[in-house]
C-alpha cells in the first residue's frame, strides 16, 4: 500500500522552485500533492506525481538532487476531526509522524493526505485494522 514520493533538494535561491516545477511541466508530469519543508538555507520539495520515475529522470537530468521515498496515501473523513482521528490511532500505536500533507484532489467523500512515519509497515497494519482507507499507487497515479 506504499506509494512513491519524490523529493528535491532546493537551495534558497530565487527561481529554484520555478525551475524545478518547470522541468516537470516540460516532462508533462502531473503533480498530485506537494509540500515544501524549508529552513533558512534550503528547502525540500516533496511531491506525489503521476510518474515518479520519469519525474526523477527529468529532474536529475536538469541537475537537481532527488530521492524517492515510500509514503502512504490515506483517506480521511472530510469533516472536522477527520485527520485527528487517524493521528490518534498512530499516537496510541506509538508511531511517530515524520510529516503529513494534503492532496489537491479528493477521493469520493474523503480528503486525501500523504503520511510518512517512522514505521510504515506497522502504520499500514494499524490503519487497516481500524478500517482506514489506504490508496495504492495505481489509484493515486490515476487520480
Amino acid at each position, binding site marked *: 500500500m506504499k506509494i512513491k514520493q519524490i523529493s528535491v533538494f532546493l537551495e534558497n535561491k530565487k527561481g529554484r522552485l520555478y525551475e524545478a516545477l518547470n522541468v516537470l511541466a516540460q516532462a508533462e508530469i502531473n503533480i498530485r500533492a506537494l509540500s515544501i519543508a524549508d529552513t533558512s538555507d534550503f528547502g525540500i520539495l516533496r511531491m506525489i506525481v503521476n510518474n515518479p520515475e520519469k519525474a526523477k529522470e527529468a529532474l536529475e537530468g536538469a*541537475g537537481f538532487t532527488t530521492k524517492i521515498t515510500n509514503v502512504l496515501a490515506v483517506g480521511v473523513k472530510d469533516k472536522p476531526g477527520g485527520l485527528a482521528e487517524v493521528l490518534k490511532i498512530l499516537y496510541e500505536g506509538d508511531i511517530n509522524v515524520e510529516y503529513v500533507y494534503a492532496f489537491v484532489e479528493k477521493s469520493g467523500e474523503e480528503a486525501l493526505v500523504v503520511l510518512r512515519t517512522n514505521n510504515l509497515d506497522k502504520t499500514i497494519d494499524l490503519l487497516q485494522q481500524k478500517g482506514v482507507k489506504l490508496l495504492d499507487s495505481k489509484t493515486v497515479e490515476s487520480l
Partner: protein
Amino acid sequence: MFWNKEIETLPKEKLKELQLERLKKVVKYAYEHVSYYRKKFEEAGLKPEDIKTLEDIRFIPFTSKADLREVYPFGMFAVPLSEIVEIHSSSGTTGKPVVIGYTKEDIEVWKEVMARSLTMIGVTKDDIIQVAYGYGLFTGGLGFHYGALAIGATIVPTSAGNTRRQIELMRDFGTTVLACTPSYALYLAEYAQDEMGIDPRTLKLRVGSFGAEMWTEEMRKEIERRFGIKAYNVYGLTEIIGPGVAHECPAQEGLHIWEDHFYAEIIDPETGEPLPEGERGELVLTTLTKKGVPMLRFRTRDITAFVSRTCPCGRTFIRIERIRGRTDDMIKVRGVMLFPYQIEKAILEVQGIEPHYQIILTRPHYLDEIEVQIEMSKEVFSDEVRKIEELRRKIEKRIEETVGIRVKVTLVEPKSLPRSEGKAKRVIDKRGLS
C-alpha cells in the same frame, strides 16, 4: 623503478659531500654573475668563501617572491639572453610576474628530475601519458613533457581544458598515465561519468601525477577510487625549476626531494630560524646546479615538514610531507591560524560528502565568521529536514573539532560551486569589502 639508481641511492654522507661542493660553487657563481646577490651579500657582510659547511647556508639572506618581482624582467639572470633557451613565468596576479630563464643545461636538469619522478612511479617508454597541465608560460605542461620525452613515453600534449576531448582521447588512445591538477582530475572523473556516461574505471589509466595545488589524502583516495589508479603527488615551482623538485614514490608517504639539485631547509615562517627535523614550517629551497637563474634560499611559502624515516623504496633522498598549506593561504580567523586543507579534511571525514566546497569569510559585526558551503550529494540527501540538519551539524562539529573554530555550514545544490580547470579557488574573503 629507478631512472638513475646510482645517484638516487647515494649514501647520505656522499650526498652531503656532493651538496656542499655544489653549494659552494653556486654561491660563488650567483655572487659573481647576479648583481642582486652581490648586493645582498655585501649588505650582510658575507663573502662566498664564508660558506664552508652546509650549515653555513643559514648566513645567506633569503630570496622572496617580492625580490624577484623587483628585478623584472631579467634582473636575476646569471647569463646573457643568448644563453637562455626558454623562459617561464609565474602568474602576476599580485603585481609583476616572476620571470625565470633556462639554459640548455637547466633544461637537461629538468628532464633528468622529471624522468626520475615519472620512472619512480612506474612510467616507462611503453606508457601513453596525457599531459593535461597547462602548456605555456606555466611550467606544468612542459615540465612533464620533458620528463616523458627523456623516458620515451608517448606524449599526448592536451594541455588543460576542453574536458570532453580529454576524456575522448583517454578512451580512444588508451592513455595510461594522467598528469594534471588534482581538482581537475576529480572534475574529469565527474564529467566522464555524468556528462558522457563513461565509467572512469573502464579507462586504461594506471597512474597519475598530480600537483600544482594543495590537496589532501582524502582527495587522493577519491581520485584513486574514481579512476581505479594510483595517484601520486608532484611538487615544484617556477622559481626553482617547475614540477620535478620533489615527487612521491610508491610508498606514498612523502615526496623525495632531488637533493643533488635542490637543497631544502624548513624554517619558522615568523622568525626565519631553521626548525628541528620533523617540525612543520616553511620550505626554503636553493638550486645547486641551475645556471640561468640560480636561486639561493628561496622562500617557497609552502608549509611542510621533513619525513626522517628511511624510505622502503631504497632512495636516500629526504622526503617532505605533502604540502600542508601556504604561508599566505593561512587564514587568520578570530586570531586563530587555519588552512583550507584542514576544513577539507574534516568535510571528507563525513561519509557521502564530496570534496566540492568553498570557504567564505565575512565580518558582519566586527567579528569574523566562516561559512563553509558544501554541495549536497545524492548519497546524503534525505526527504526529512531533520536528517539534513543532523548532517549539517555533524559537519560543523567535525570542522570545529579539527580547526577549533565554530563555522556555519551551508548545503548548496550539486555543481553550483565554481569548478576550475586550473587551481581551485577555495577561499573567498569578503572581510575587506564591507
